[in-house]
């Protein structure tokens, strides 16, 4: 049983082939496109569940393709990038990309990202009344947070942060997205607050705060809340 159709938009035939192998082994069907234009029309005709979009295409920039996609579709989009394009990555994430992978990526990493993004797309919002992952438990009605059965006291901002992270579990959130979600502001100057509160939260919900596992930093981008299996 297929997990869904993934459209790969990349001009390198070998990368296309590689992604094809990894995706098929991960249980997905694959459609291929070599240019931005072709990708857009494939998207219209084949209606895939997710798109892997390269940042640099021969006819247009990946970012522009993303903007065109978002004009008519809310399909899951993962950007494929190289190192050192942090600014562009942040721009993409804030313009509607769901996540990104950096070349060279590992097969495990890619499929995990894809799964997280698709899960969020298929179950929008929080349906469950309780979040429970590897000893961290949150009851949304009562706002009760426990770690390995012990109740944790969180401040309003820390609780807000945790909710925002859980809602996007497995996915990267940019600092600005967090600012908008939790602080309700676009003011970049407050971005240091995000870093400071994120560390406060880590002290409370990580088993070993010096080796954080749940909340990891994405250099130059933001934070990711990992589900521990």
């Amino acid at each position, binding site marked *: 049983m297929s997990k869904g159709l993934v459209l790969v938009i990349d001009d390198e035939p070998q990368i296309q082939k590689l992604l094809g*192998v990894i995706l098929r*082994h991960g249980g997905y069907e694959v459609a291929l496109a070599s240019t931005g234009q072709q990708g857009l029309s494939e998207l219209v005709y084949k209606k895939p569940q997710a798109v892997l979009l390269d940042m640099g295409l021969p006819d247009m920039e990946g970012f522009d393709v993303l903007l065109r996609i978002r004009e008519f579709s809310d399909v899951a989009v993962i950007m494929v990038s190289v190192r*050192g394009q942090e600014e562009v990555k942040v721009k993409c994430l804030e313009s509607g990309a769901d996540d990104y992978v950096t070349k*060279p990526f590992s097969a495990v990493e890619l499929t995990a990202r894809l799964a997280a993004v698709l899960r969020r797309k298929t179950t929008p919002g929080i349906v469950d009344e309780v979040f429970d992952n590897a000893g961290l438990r949150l009851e949304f009605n009562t706002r009760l947070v426990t770690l390995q059965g012990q109740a944790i006291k969180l401040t309003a901002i820390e609780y807000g942060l945790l909710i925002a992270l859980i809602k996007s579990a497995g996915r990267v959130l940019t600092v600005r997205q967090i600012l908008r979600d939790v602080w309700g502001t676009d003011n970049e100057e407050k971005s240091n607050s995000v870093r400071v509160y994120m560390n406060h939260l880590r002290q409370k919900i990580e088993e070993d705060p010096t080796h954080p596992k749940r909340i990891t930093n994405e*250099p*130059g981008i933001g934070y990711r809340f990992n589900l521990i299996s």
Partner: protein
Amino acid sequence: MERPDPDAVLARVKADDNRRGRLKIFFGMCPGVGKTYAMLQEARQRQSEGFRVWIGVVCTHGRLETEALLKGLEIIPPRIVEYRGTVLQEMDIDAILQIRPQLVLVDELAHTNAAGSRHPKRYQDVLELLSAGIDVYTTLNVQHIESHREDILAVTRVAVAETVPDTILDEATEITLVDLSPQALRARLAEGKVYVPSQAKAAADNFFKTENLTALREMSLRLTAAHVNRNLRSLMSAKGMEGPFKSSERILVAVGATPFSESLIRMTRRWAGMLDASWIVLHVEGSTPLLEIHKESILKNLALARQLGAEIVHQVGDDLADVIMEIANKEHVTQIILGKSPQKPWQRWLGIPSLADKLVGLSGQIDVHMVRISTGEKSFPKKSKQLFSQYRFRQYLLSLGMFAIATLISLLLQNFTGYQTLGVLYLLTVVLSGAFLGRTAAFMLATLSALAWDFLFIPPKYTFTILHSNDIALLVMFFVSALMMGHITSKLRRQKELEHKQRLRSEALYELTRSLAVSTDLSQAMRVATLQINLLCHSLSAVILVDEMGQPDLKQRMGDPIELTDNQEGLIQWVVNNKKAAGRFSDTLPQQPLMYLPLMTSGQVRAVLLIKLLKDRPLDLAQRTLLESFTALMTVMLEKDALLKISREAKMKEDTQNLQSALLDNLSHELKTPLTIIAGYLDALVLYHEWPREALDLLSESRLACLRLTSCVDAVLDLTKLDTGNLKANYSLCEVKDILHEAIKQAAIGTDKQRVRMDSLQGPLYVKADFYMLTQALKNIIHNSLVHGPEEGIVNVQVRLMDERMMIKVSDEGEGIPQETLDKIFDKFYRGAKTKRGGLGLGLSIAKRFIELNEGSIEAQNLSPQGFMMSVSLPITEKEAIEEHV
């Protein structure tokens, strides 16, 4: 090791160069108060503090206490000059510049140097020492200050020949008043402590009278107080950068050729000093040609004004009041100063308003001050002399000629026409004479004509008697209208002449501006400018460009080929260094045949203009003002050229940067795509297929090699970006453990991860840094330890706070490196002698540069008995600063 940034070094050197020496003046009311003594005492104090103090010149006048102070101070030997049989000793400025003491003592600032010295006056030597960055102590008496000369004369009846301009007081960083009461001074005089006894008596009687001394003392006290006051004000507004003048007052004084103008200029300077105002000296050139002697005295007055720090404005026009008001309004003058000149009685009688009346009527918001001018011993050259000047003489001769011709024609015509018509002929002659020969000639002709007409033609002939009363009326009317016509036509002529002069000036300027505007390059523009200068001054001229380092480019000379001796080339360098004109008509080496004028933009000499006059005659006023306008235009040209060059370079740099950046992106893509593909396929092979154990090992190894190659490519790219300036730091608040986790994740591949132990303080620790750079730096350091430590050895990463800084220590249990190569490990491509595995030798070099870009430092040391440690020190962000953000 990182080399020091050459630009920074250069800036530092320049700043040192630009440091101007400090001038301290020991100031007194008259000789004998102990200025030299005070100066020497203070100099000894400086010397004991470790300053290099030398004596440039000190005159002890044989005073014993003063001579005693000389002991232990080093003296620069004087220059021996022979002048008309006498041997003189002068301060050796070249020797001082060569020795370059930190502080030099130069006694008697107002001294006049022997003829043939570099500068005519000693204070000019001092100014040069100051611009060379040498501190100077000097002594000065109040009577030697230029603007006080007249007062001194009035008080003491002693004319002072040696003066220094008032601006030298502004130059002084400090003025110390050496004060002594008149009684005490007279007592010292009586004891013979001031002059040698034989002279003492005569001197005391003439100069050292108690009332003289009291007046001089008051003057010196007031001057010192004014200086202190000004210093305070300039200190207070030092940060404001409001320009040199703090008050908004602007004073204008109109001067002419009169000797009173000199006092007027001095007085205005003092006034401007008190008000802290800028001041303008205006000279209005009328249409009447000036006598040589007047021209000289105007030039002298204007030179004095320039020396005293005035702004000089030169304007052509006949109506003095109108011109003064025009300039006053244009220059935003707030006060006008006028010398009170007595109005001529007939003018008062006719009700003709005086200049002062007119100005008061026109001045509006501007204050007009009338100043009484003491009619001193000097007298203004009388008009009578003017009557017989060569120029006038020719005019009178010509008008006499015209008169003779008119009379001749009249004699011929008298038989055909009535005598009345002849009057009209005479009138015509007067008009012509007024139009071409000037007013005086016309008036003379009018009188002569009236007399001749009466004598020769009006009946009865050959007598001055007139029979008919209407003939009397005719003659009177003739005379009056002749005078009026003469006056009006001569005035018209003068106006035309003025316009012509003005037009010539504007045309010359316009011509230069136009030629400059169409010149395509600097050398063409400069050639055009030198041509115009040659036309103006009857000279040869050339422009020598000066490069950014202040070196004149002697080979590239624009304009006429002027041969230069070594000394002259040296003088060009002097002009560049001192930012002052030199050579002919200047203060420095005026006996030189060439004029050396600096062309300056924003405080730097960009070029030196050489002018060789073909006739050795001083330039007149019009030539000088035009020359100034020319040089101003040339300066604009130079500035334009410099700006063009800068913008061109900036554009080129930007283009190169963009190209490099695009190239690097491309390179990065081309190198990494195949690596991604290989690593990905290997990954897929391991994950999705069954392999014998041995094959699985090979595949994993290949994958690791591939990752290593990737990080190698990253390192090379990072370094290239650093070197070409394509990597910009992006600072934000970073948590150190985040950085370390990322660094360890990237550094330790496979099982190496277990070899890294992190030991950090509890709680978050923040630094302001570029996350990427710091991660790469620490990754490289940790990777280095993993590689060079023993195979299964542990790498400890320790985070501590020490002295307000964060210390990250990475240590391994390896053998370390030989002590002597410790400082080499951060060099590019340096690889230790026993380096086991591959690597480019770039990792630590990159790490060091990244850390330094984040205001950190890195050190390496061997541990005893075994091990090697690298310590990174970073500035921490204070708790308060973090909480501010929250």
